[in-house]
């Protein structure tokens, strides 16, 4: 058998082993199929300075020099803009995710998971409707800084590209889910903010199960045929992805809207603040532990912390 045939056979076997999980997740998705247009009662207006829209301990300036200088109303205003930023970064992340899922739908070698990819795609679109619903009604959709051009794109074999796509998805979703879970349980939050976080956490729990199984299966079936340079490239890419993802939580546009001076310097100093570095390490721990224990990463993505 040639290397590529052996790899195909291993991938087929790995995907087949996902069968029972994928069937169970698909049944759950069908059972909780949602209509995002009727599931929320949007209040006519919200009061950003009087109510919390995000958990204060999860704000990007918490534990920094800036936090001490903000009074209660300013902290709530920051939480409100930061909630809109959190929803916006989800929208932009889900946009890329939907593209990648759509591209892989009914691909011959992924046929075994096509049924579930339909749910995944459908659910991400609905999540973005919730996030967009909040942002467009009460705040705005913050811009994304993601872009690429021809010379910046990597030419990678398809199995490497698949692995990176699903692993990036997992990292992104695990970080988001940590915020969702904490904020869904925070009784200080406005009911709409709690609902959005709770609903996303509830939905994402299926994607996270799927992601972990698929990433492990792809790694086990594909990486044995990758040479040292490819594996090193994969690891560099994933480590940088942690940084890229986390940087989005420190958005200068938010600081400007919250009335802070020197928004870019604020973002940089908050990023470097010890309390925030520790926060990022802690929130990332579940996914870094998964990646390290499976041998996918050989060291922590320290630049992100």
């Amino acid at each position: 058998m040639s290397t590529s045939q052996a790899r195909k056979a291993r991938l087929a076997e790995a995907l087949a082993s996902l069968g029972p999980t994928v069937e169970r997740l698909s049944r759950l998705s069908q059972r909780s199929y949602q209509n995002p247009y009727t599931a929320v009662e949007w209040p006519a207006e919200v009061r950003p300075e009087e109510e919390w829209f995000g958990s204060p301990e999860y704000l990007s300036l918490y534990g920094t020099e800036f936090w001490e200088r903000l009074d209660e109303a300013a902290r709530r205003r920051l939480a409100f803009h930061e909630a809109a930023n959190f929803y916006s970064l989800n929208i932009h992340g889900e946009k890329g995710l939907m593209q990648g899922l759509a591209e892989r739908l009914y691909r011959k070698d992924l046929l075994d998971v096509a049924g579930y990819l339909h749910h995944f795609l459908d659910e991400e679109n609905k999540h973005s409707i919730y996030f967009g619903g909040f942002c467009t009604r009460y705040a705005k959709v913050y811009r994304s800084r993601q872009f690429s051009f021809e010379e910046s794109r990597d030419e990678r074999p398809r199995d490497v590209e698949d692995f990176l796509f699903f692993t990036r998805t997992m990292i992104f979703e695990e970080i988001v889910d940590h915020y969702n879970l904490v904020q869904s349980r925070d009784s200080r939050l406005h009911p709409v903010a709690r609902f959005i976080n709770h609903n996303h956490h509830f939905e994402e729990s299926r994607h996270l199960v799927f992601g972990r199984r698929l990433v492990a299966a792809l790694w086990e079936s594909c990486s044995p045929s990758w040479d040292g340079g490819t594996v090193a490239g994969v690891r560099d890419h994933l480590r940088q992805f942690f940084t890229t993802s986390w940087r989005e939580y420190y958005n200068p546009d938010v600081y400007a809207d919250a009335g802070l001076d020197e928004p870019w310097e604020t973002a940089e100093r908050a990023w470097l603040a010890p309390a925030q570095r520790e926060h990022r390490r802690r929130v990332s721990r579940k996914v870094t532990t998964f990646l390290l224990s499976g041998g996918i990463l050989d060291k922590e993505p320290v630049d992100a912390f």
Partner: protein
Amino acid sequence: MRSEQEFRDQLRSWIRSKSGEGETAALTDGTALFEERYLRSVHLPELLLLLERLCGEPIDVEELSPRDFRSIDAMVRRYARSGVAS
């Protein structure tokens, strides 16, 4: 206000921190950063944030030209002018 030199120095040290040490020995302000694989797509959002901080203005991704990111010289030409006194 940042000087043009400071703009170059900050870009250079950021690029060095992103690529392996050996590879950066030959890095100059004219090096084609993406063609020569010092940087990749996954670095772009962070690079954009750094450029915004250096020039103190938002940069709209919908109005970018890849040419402006080719090298340190290209970035200085395009972005060190607007907000930076040299």
